[in-house]
């Protein structure tokens, strides 16, 4: 039993190490991606930007905005009377192109604003000091933050605030930069891709080769066979995790600020969830194109919407609750909160439980409908 498990894990591990393409995509590619996006990210250009607005005493700043509005006559920034987020528009000629540049302002306290920034809810904090100056805090390496700043700065020019009265605070504290946002997302995406291709695809492939059928025609324990894939994935993903983390640790100074045991729990739960999905997806098909399509159908949408590269708060409000329920979002958000907000078990137990349960249910269901012959 134990020997079989060891053998199975060992052959799967060798398969992984002996395929240069797999090594490239799982080890080198994420590093290149983090470098590209962390350093060279260009213009954002999305329609809706988000910024936090903090008042003089570090409290949510609705009164300030009322003041701004009355001073210009035209609408530069506004907060609804019931305190909902308002919109700042560039005070210009009102052409279509300029109208598209909108920043949604969230009145928040100083602490709330910092948390929102770490979560990617807002990309910039605009703060009004008691002496009347405006302070922008953001990571200039993030195209999104820079764009938001430019729009706000030009909008505020319409409010006749002297340029010497504005200050820029470059955020360099680990946890508040774009790279800090990006890395946990990449690690989460890596777990997903690794499970989907490493487990899902490899099962479809050995079924196609009729090797699965041959293995199933031995006294091999089938649950052990499926379970071995989970263990292999955890081991492979630890290597991938470590490779990327070591790189960003030294190159960008990214740090795990929260609980490492909690991170491990999140990591295992994520592996379980995506191995479960992979087993389910690969349970029937022996066709490479079908398999490819199925895997992409799961991976692609989540890669785009689950907040790996940019915050899902940029999506319409109705979509956000749906996006938050996706497994990759749960995994990425949990890892992000541990990396950047110093979260521990208390903050991540729910997603860990949901991911674990999801993985186990799908794993079991997949094993029941699994086509061996």
């Amino acid at each position, binding site marked *: 039993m134990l020997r079989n498990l060891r053998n199975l894990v060992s*052959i799967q591990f*060798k*398969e992984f190490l002996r395929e240069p393409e797999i090594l490239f995509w799982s080890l080198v590619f994420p590093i290149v991606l983090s470098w590209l996006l962390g350093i060279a990210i260009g213009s954002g250009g999305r329609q809706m930007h988000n910024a936090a607005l903090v008042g003089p005493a570090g409290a949510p700043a609705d009164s300030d905005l009322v003041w701004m509005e009355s001073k210009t006559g035209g609408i530069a920034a506004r907060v609804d009377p019931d305190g909902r987020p308002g919109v700042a528009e560039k005070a210009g000629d009102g052409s279509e192109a300029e109208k598209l540049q909108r920043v949604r302002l969230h009145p928040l306290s100083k602490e709330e604003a910092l948390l929102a920034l770490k979560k990617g809810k807002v990309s910039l904090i605009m703060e009004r000091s008691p002496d009347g100056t405006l302070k922008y805090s953001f990571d200039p390496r993030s195209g999104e933050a820079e764009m938001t700043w430019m729009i706000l700065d030009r909008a505020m020019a319409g409010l006749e605030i002297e340029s010497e009265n504005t200050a820029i605070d470059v955020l360099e504290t680990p946890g508040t930069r774009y790279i800090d946002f990006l890395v946990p997302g990449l690690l989460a995406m890596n777990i997903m891709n690794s499970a989907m291709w490493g487990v899902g695809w490899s099962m479809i492939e050995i079924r196609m*080769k*009729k*090797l699965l*059928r*041959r293995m*199933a025609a031995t*006294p091999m324990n089938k649950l052990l066979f499926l379970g071995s894939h989970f263990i292999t994935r955890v081991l492979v993903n630890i290597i991938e995790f470590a490779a990327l983390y070591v790189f960003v640790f030294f190159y960008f100074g990214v740090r795990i600020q929260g609980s490492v045991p909690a991170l491990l729990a999140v990591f295992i739960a994520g592996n379980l969830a995506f191995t479960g999905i992979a087993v389910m997806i690969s349970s029937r098909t022996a066709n490479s194109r079908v398999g490819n399509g199925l895997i992409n159908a799961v991976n692609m949408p989540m890669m785009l919407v689950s907040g790996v590269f940019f915050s899902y708060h940029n999506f319409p409000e109705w979509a956000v609750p749906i996006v938050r329920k996706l497994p990759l979002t749960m995994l990425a958000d949990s890892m992000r909160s541990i990396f950047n907000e110093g979260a521990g078990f208390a903050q991540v137990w729910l997603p860990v439980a949901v991911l674990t349960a999801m993985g186990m249910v799908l794993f079991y269901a997949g094993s029941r409908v699994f086509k061996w012959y």
Partner: protein
Amino acid sequence: MIVVSNVSKSFKDVRAVQDVSLSVAPGEYVALLGPNGAGKTTLVEMIEGLRSPDSGSISILGRDWKHDERHLRGIMGISLQETKFIDKLTVREIMDLFAGFYGRSTDEMPGILEHIGLLEKSASYTMNLSHGQRQKLALGIALINHPQILILDEPTTGLDPNARRELWEILGDLKSKGTALILTTHYMEEAEYLCERIIIMNQGRILAEGTLEELLAAHGAMEIISFALEGCGKAPVDGAAAGSTIAGASPPPGKAVPVCEIPDSVARIAGAFELVRGEEPGSGQLYVSDIVAALPLFLAAVEREKLRLKRLECRKMNLDDLFVSLTGRRLDA
């Protein structure tokens, strides 16, 4: 040892196996002979427990697949029609993996690899093996658990004659160990060479079974006059190979093929059982009880009809001929 009773299996609109019964004794070598699509693979896969029959029952050493799957898997060695391995695993690693599944020590693996002639390939990736070596590896895996029953599905299909012979020799050696073998093949020589009992299948049914001699004796005609008439056009080269014309059937309309009808008088000579017309126009095989007696009559009949022979061959009937006389199809068609 193996008892298959009234087993049937259908896929969508194909009745792959229809009401088949057979039994195999311990140590017996049995060949399932038949063309592609005869239902051989479906039948052996049911015996191997990889498919379940729609009706009928299969019992192996008194056990069945529903209740004793693990036990049966442990005493059976199988090789599927085609198995590919993980490309970048070595021969030895694959053997060791399967040794684990069967609970065998990996120390035994070099011995098996030597037996099947793959020892020097132990460290080669399976992707670098030839087709014949891959088939040997599949056989090696089938031998890991020293099976009481060995079921090989077309183990030599696509192999060159040398590689085929090597495999035959390995299988011949096993006979002394008392292993029972079920082998599917569409090579008549393979069935003749390896197996004491031959079961001929076509279209999901068993047509005949017995030893080679029994089969030939039971089906009457023992000798064959094979001939072709002069002056008849050749059959279209591609058409003849692909669409094996059933004896006596007229060629499809619209094809300008000169047909030389062989007169019935030729087939009605004394001692003749059956005339099977060949694919080539004007060619045929006459099944007779005794060539020595029938040949002069045949030649006289040809002369009477004012025909001329282009080719003439007399021989004893073999399995292939038997198959043609049973089904009108050739085994390798």
